[in-house]
């Protein structure tokens, strides 16, 4: 089967959602073409170029990923589903094993301090709504985690905690239900729908 015939066959399957007006226009043109015209059309198209355009188009949409973890100059940056935030912060606390944990909460009513927390888990469970919609800074000794709500987090690691970057990222993915062993110093992992896109350098 030639590439043109494969393409024609593929045309009978459901079309993917087109993210741009140009994509919609292309789909409309394709729908209106007669069989012979489609055969001619596929000879003109650079499929590699189209695929690159499709990828660029999907990446340029202002969608936020379901999962993100990436190294930063200060430590790590994260996006995860709200339902996993408490588990991840507890896991992070276990990895860092701080002597002292302090929290600083910023909401519509102002600012509140919670010093020398006995249990990070209890604090997080009592402030579940705050983690979802407000802004929280948690100090694990000298290292600092900020939560901007809905699973948007940034971690600045200090001192010996800086060695824990890959361990924290691995545990983060595990909390989200994924396994990956990081090998390089710098990396980013992003998941838009259901596939992890991993880059390491």
């Amino acid at each position, binding site marked *: 089967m030639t590439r043109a015939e494969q393409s024609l066959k593929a045309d009978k399957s459901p079309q993917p959602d087109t993210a741009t007006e140009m994509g919609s226009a292309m789909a409309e043109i394709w729908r209106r073409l007669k069989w012979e015209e489609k055969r001619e059309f596929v000879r003109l198209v650079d499929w590699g170029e189209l695929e690159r355009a499709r990828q660029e188009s999907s990446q340029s949409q*202002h969608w936020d990923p379901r999962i993100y973890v990436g190294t930063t100059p*200060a430590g790590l940056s994260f996006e995860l589903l709200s339902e996993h935030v408490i588990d991840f912060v507890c896991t992070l606390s276990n990895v860092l094993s701080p002597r002292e944990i302090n929290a600083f909460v*910023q909401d519509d009513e*102002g*600012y509140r*301090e919670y010093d020398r927390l006995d249990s990070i888990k209890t604090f997080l469970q009592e402030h579940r709504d705050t983690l979802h919609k407000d802004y929280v800074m948690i100090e694990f000794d000298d290292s600092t985690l*900020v939560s*901007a709500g*809905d699973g948007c987090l940034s971690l600045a690691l200090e001192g010996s905690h800086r060695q824990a970057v890959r361990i924290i990222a691995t545990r983060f993915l595990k909390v989200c239900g994924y396994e990956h062993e990081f090998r390089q110093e710098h990396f*980013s992992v992003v998941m838009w729908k259901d596939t992890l896109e991993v880059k390491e350098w």
Partner: protein
Amino acid sequence: MVNRRKLVKSTASFFRLLLEHSQRGYEPSPEHILKRMLAPLCQSFAELLQEGTKNDAWDLLESFSRECGRLERPG
């Protein structure tokens, strides 16, 4: 009375979060930038203007500058 030292540190942390988003391999949505980074920054700026001192403002600028120094600029 707000703890101004922690307010400065928290504000610098949200500025860092903003810088970090600019380094990601995708474009975060404008809504995400507004809600997760600019909103807490704006609230903190207002609080610092109301409750803070000139030293707090200087400390904040130093913190911002420190974060900027760590920024990986495109070559």
